């Protein structure tokens, strides 16, 4: 929470997925608060880097086996490097990293729909260190019926590899 806005709201705003009324409230605040404007810039730059990495991951998936192994490892290393250190890491960062990881395999729209449904069911009170594993379990439940057991297991593993810290 910063100046009355939740992490979820920051993320939605930076992705352009925020409702009109909340957006104008945040925009009004951004016009007068340099601190939040700087935070938003940082989030946007970081999202851009993550989505570039996601794109590289997609390309790596298409490669022949030998190159794929190497490219996958490098891509995952870079995503891990982009992931903030434990004290700066929050739900917004974790969700964005999760999307960058899983989007290339499932498709960005599929993963957004599954994350939204899992947030609603697994963490109705908002994401924090305690509700993250419930969210991860729900994410698996959301993905499995449509995409299969291997896909569901990947979603669970990816979410559990991105531990969330309370701040």
């Amino acid at each position: 929470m910063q100046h009355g806005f939740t992490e979820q709201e920051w993320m939605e705003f930076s992705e352009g997925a925020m409702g009109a009324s909340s957006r104008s409230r945040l925009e009004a605040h951004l016009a007068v608060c340099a601190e939040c404007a700087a935070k938003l810039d940082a989030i946007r730059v970081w999202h851009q880097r993550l989505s570039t990495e996601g794109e590289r991951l997609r390309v790596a998936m298409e490669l022949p086996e030998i190159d794929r192994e190497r490219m996958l490892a490098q891509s995952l290393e870079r995503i891990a490097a982009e992931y903030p250190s434990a004290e700066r890491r929050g739900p917004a960062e974790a969700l964005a990293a999760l999307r960058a990881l899983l989007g290339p395999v499932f498709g960005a729209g599929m993963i957004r729909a599954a994350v939204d449904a899992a947030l609603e069911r697994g963490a109705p009170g908002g994401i924090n260190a305690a509700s993250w594993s419930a969210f991860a379990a729900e994410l698996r439940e959301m993905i499995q019926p449509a995409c299969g057991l291997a896909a569901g297991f990947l979603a669970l593993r990816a979410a559990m590899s991105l531990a969330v810290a309370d701040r």
Partner: protein
Amino acid sequence: MGKRPAVAMLWTGYALTAVWAMSIRVALGFYPLGEPRPFLLRPFAFSVGLIVANAVTLFFAWKVRGDAPPRTRARTAWLLIAISAAAEIVRYGLLRAAASRLGAPSPGSVPLFPLSAAAGLIATALLLIAFGALWSAFRPLGLGRLGVAHWIGIAAIVATIPVLLKLPAQGAQALGALAPARLPLIVRLQQFDPVLIAGCAIAGIFLVRTGKDAGRGPLAAGFRCVGLFGLVRMAALVVPLIPVSGIQWIEVPATGAGIASDWLITLAVYYRWRLTIESRELTARLAPD
């Protein structure tokens, strides 16, 4: 094998089978009926390509079924796709057997043509049910909601059904001497064939939309193949009916693409299997043992 070479191989299989079907069609004009033709240009020959396509489909659909959680619609759908591929193999096998017997019809023999037609109908009907089950597996996530343009497309397909229903009757007339060999029930069942194909085209619209909502990746690529499958099967039925001069130039490739379209289901199933492969690889990378 990497993804790209595998996909390229499947597309090549599709193209070869389609060209094969087309050249047989063209050869019919050069070689008078009854005159011996080179082996590869005999009517049943291209069924080899289709048998291979369905064998590959059966193999991957069975693997994907194993990856779907028990008691889910997706698992049923992949089982149905596997059975459908098996039915298609039976169909083309029977067709080959029937064609090799053509010269010497023996009274009281098994009616192979009607049986192969029945296998084809069953295969298409199972595919249609499977497509519906797949779409419904994605619906709880809000994927695959149709827009106005989709409904217009569906209305256009539905509008052509009455015209298409007149086709099997004409086909039976064209067969002439063969017609008595068909069981009356099967002839009546074949009336449903254009309806089933129109159904596949409609299911294709639903799944393409679902894939578009899912975003770029193996899911969307697979669903696009299903959409293309519905489109080319529909085109093979509709194009010959268009009253435009010179349509026969399009008719031959359209029919070829339609006949060989089993390969598109093979591609769709392979793309879905890739999702499982990629998930496993990424999981292994995330948590190296």
